[in-house]
């Protein structure tokens, strides 16, 4: 690492200032504000606020609804991460072996990424629509009545499906480039050492993909936790009452629909802590990982 040294403090501070200002104004100031509001009970119309200490937090942890949403978020994150990673891996492994029309094939697989989450949500609504959604009709063939927005688990399943579908392309691109960075000769050496293609995959290819997979794991967890907001909004819009939602969506519902700014701020603070923990975990593991070069 190259080290530069400055004689005075003035110049480096000046050089850093724009960056510091941006971070300060757009990240720390709102975050600090959220932390502050989380200790107040705010008047819905902004006429005043009362300091309530840890009451907002205590209220959340005591709320059965909050715990339910947290559990759902956990399950949702796990399922979305698992399915989008594993399906993308299968697609990438197959795409890596395509000889003719490689580009077309890959482009087609990546297309879905261009669909923005809220649009994906609307597509989900259409596909699972109670009246004549193709997926609803398909499931009806098996005698299952799929009721989006009415049945809690049906809605949850639709959420998982749409979120997974929307995020497969990102995972696919990373897995594919990971696969292609494995030297051909290593694969060939393995062909001479082991005749079973499946075993070769788990013994050689998969461990070499592990750094990519770990990186994607973090990306996917963050995606499922935070970036699915628009999709969920499209799916449960209007009747969030009994429907499943994630913690991030609940922040919005409580804060803007329920006008409980204090409680909603406390929820954001909890999410901030969660992100912090996740980041620390990521850096710890990444540091310990061996880079195979």
């Amino acid at each position, binding site marked *: 690492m190259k080290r530069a040294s400055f004689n005075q403090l003035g110049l480096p501070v000046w050089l850093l200032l724009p960056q510091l200002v941006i971070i300060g104004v757009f990240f720390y100031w709102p975050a600090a504000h959220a932390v502050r509001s989380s200790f107040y009970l705010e008047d819905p119309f902004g006429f005043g606020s009362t300091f309530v200490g840890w009451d907002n937090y205590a209220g959340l942890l005591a709320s059965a609804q909050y715990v339910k949403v947290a559990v759902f978020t956990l399950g949702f994150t796990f399922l979305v991460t698992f399915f989008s990673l594993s399906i993308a891996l299968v697609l990438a492994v197959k795409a890596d072996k395509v000889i003719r029309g490689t580009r077309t094939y890959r482009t087609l697989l990546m297309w879905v990424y261009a669909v923005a989450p809220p649009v994906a949500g609307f597509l989900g609504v259409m596909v699972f629509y109670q009246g004549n959604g193709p997926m609803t009709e398909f499931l009806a063939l098996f005698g299952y009545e799929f009721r989006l927005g009415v049945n809690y688990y049906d809605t949850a399943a639709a959420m998982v499906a749409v979120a997974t579908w929307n995020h497969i392309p990102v995972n696919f691109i990373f897995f594919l480039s990971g696969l292609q960075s494995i*030297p051909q000769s290593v694969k060939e050496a393995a062909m001479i050492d082991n005749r079973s293609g499946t075993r070769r995959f788990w013994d050689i290819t998969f461990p*070499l993909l592990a750094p990519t997979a770990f990186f994607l794991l973090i990306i996917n967890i963050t995606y499922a936790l935070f970036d699915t907001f628009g999709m969920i909004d499209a799916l449960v819009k209007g009747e969030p009452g009994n429907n499943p939602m994630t913690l991030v969506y609940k922040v919005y519902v409580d804060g803007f629909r329920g006008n409980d700014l204090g409680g909603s701020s406390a929820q954001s603070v909890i999410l901030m802590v969660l992100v912090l923990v996740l980041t620390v975990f990521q850096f710890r593991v990444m540091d310990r990982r061996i880079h195979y070069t």
Partner: protein
Amino acid sequence: MVHVALKSISKVYPNGVRAVHPTSFDIQQGEFIVLVGPSGCGKSTLLRMIAGLEEITEGELSIAGRVVNDIDPAERDIAMVFQNYALYPHMTVYNNMAYGLRNRGMAKADIDAAVSTAATMLNLTEFLTRRPSQLSGGQRQRVAMGRAIVRNPALFLFDEPLSNLDAKLRGQMRIEIKALQRRLGVTSVYVTHDQVEAMTMADRIIVLNGGRIEQIGTPAEVYHQPASTFVASFMGAPPMNLLPAHYNGNGRVHLSETIHIEAPVSADYSGQVKLGVRPENVGIVDSSHPDALRFDLEFVEELGAGRLLHGKLGDSGLIVHIPHTDPIPGGEVYVGLPKSALVMFNHETGMRL
């Protein structure tokens, strides 16, 4: 005993490019064969077909008496050393060597024994728990060798294994590989574009050009009796001198109107030829010598162990190699082309007459 037999093996890629024209040769038990040629001559393709990494378009390949065309690389009883070592980066040196054995269902104790023998042989014992990224180029090369040795295969395949090493290490590994192969007695096919490696390591050299075999022979045969002008100019540094000349079939070769010497062979041919002579076989002679030819010395290249005299014989360029103990000739220089060291090629086909 014939150990590996190639019968009219050819390779045509799906895009229609013919990389290897029908090629046949036999490899004897314990023989060290070097496939040599310029880039794109098909030497690697040929090796990869033997390994099973590349499908054989036509022809029949047998190893140890068994036709292996449709047999998986893992079941051909071969081991291969790759140009960039192709070690498994996430495995220790021990596991790199043991992986192939485990997949063959070998007992743990036997694997231990095989790996530790190979490690001792290759001075790798202290590195067994390291990963490839913690090793130097030469050590990685030895691990790749070890991975091949532990398998105790019927056939070793080497795909330019030394080209990623620096010159000094290359010379050393060349000797180590050759000594190891002698000791283990395993039949080997070695691909290289380096003619020094080919000369020093091979029992027999196969020179390839444009997907065809130019010559098969011992290093001495290939060097002194090249089958074609291609072999003559590919092997040896500097390459063989090829002087354009005319041959009438009357026993004399005419290098020009006035310069003519006795022909090395009496071929039933007349027309344009190329007269080949190795630089070290051209002698500096006295003007009174009966076959003395006038040589216009242009410049001298100092090699330490000898010198290269660049100049002209008539209108054609000639390089003469003289030992460092000989003085640099001054004034009018004359050279002699000893008949026994001359080879004559057909000018059109490039084949030796």
